């Protein structure tokens, strides 16, 4: 098999090899019937997973419900799991599938609009109020992003996955992932332009 020579940023996440063997070890122990390993895995990944789902749904209870379904799927696949990629890639891929399934079933979709004027919030004069409004403006702008852009930028910035890992999770090519992230940034920049530090 050829040795690949690829730029590091395309294959290694910012977390690098942060305990990848630990997750593989936990999955092996879960396959062997260890409830303790299952509890540890859930404890380790519950917050990153719920936050990833929450970015798309905006509904905390629904996010927890979907997260439980994801952990169920991971558990059900314990016997056939092979550590071919980082566990986070595997987990977030299942999570994204479940999010899409949920949207199909409930026909509940986060607001998606390309009209930046709908989410534009004028900058206030009060510095304290300004902070709150920045976050409010950002929340509205994030919710208005198309799902693929929102997912891509969330995986890059919050979960610190590499482009290659995001490509795997989203089943998109690396150039598509980069385009999605660039577009998301352009949209969010426009939404926050009044809050730009001079």
């Amino acid at each position, binding site marked *: 098999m050829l040795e690949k020579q690829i730029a590091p940023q395309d294959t290694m996440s910012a977390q690098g090899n942060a305990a990848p063997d630990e997750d593989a070890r936990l999955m092996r122990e879960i396959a062997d019937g260890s409830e303790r390993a299952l509890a540890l895995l859930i404890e380790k990944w519950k917050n990153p997973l719920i936050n990833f789902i929450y970015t798309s749904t905006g509904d905390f209870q629904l996010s927890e419900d979907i997260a439980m379904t994801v952990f169920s799927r991971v558990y059900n696949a314990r016997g056939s799991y092979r550590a071919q990629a980082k566990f986070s890639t595997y987990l977030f891929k299942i999570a994204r599938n479940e999010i899409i399934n949920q949207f199909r079933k409930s026909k509940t979709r986060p607001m998606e609009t390309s009209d930046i004027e709908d989410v534009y919030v004028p900058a206030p004069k009060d510095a304290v109020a300004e902070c709150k409004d920045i976050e409010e403006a950002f929340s509205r702008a994030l919710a208005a992003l198309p799902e693929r852009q929102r997912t891509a*930028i969330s995986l890059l910035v919050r979960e610190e996955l590499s482009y290659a890992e995001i490509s795997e999770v989203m089943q998109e090519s690396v150039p598509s992932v980069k385009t999605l992230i660039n577009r998301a940034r352009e949209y969010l920049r426009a939404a926050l332009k009044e809050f730009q530090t001079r």
Partner: protein
Amino acid sequence: MQDQMIDNLLKRRTVEASADFSARALARIKGSEAAGESVDYSESVDSIINGNLRRYSVRASSDFCAKALRFAVDGEKPALFKSIIAAFSSFAAAAACLVVAFMPVPQVDKPAVSEEDFVQVSNLSSQIDSIANLIAEHEVINTIGVK
């Protein structure tokens, strides 16, 4: 500066799992196991296949396999590159067969897709990705003339 602000805002948007989340998740998993509930992976398989088609639909165009094979047998190309093109063509054909095999059939009692099928499709998808990345690398190398 703007991008840094966006990144900081995104990272600040965090929620904490409920205090009893882990216990509830474990209870749900164990409850499902005790009830003997089986999992249908149809939607997961559909998602993988649709993702592959979306990513490789240009390369898997009706003429691509034929063109790629003709390109592969061109004597000017390095043997390894020819092998990779041929391998990718095979995988593209395999992916197409996979699509046909798992294409939704309009019948009332559609059989559920098993976990084993899901794992096989997932593994094949990963292999296709690896081959596609190798192809892309060698295309770049060939283009810039690096030996």
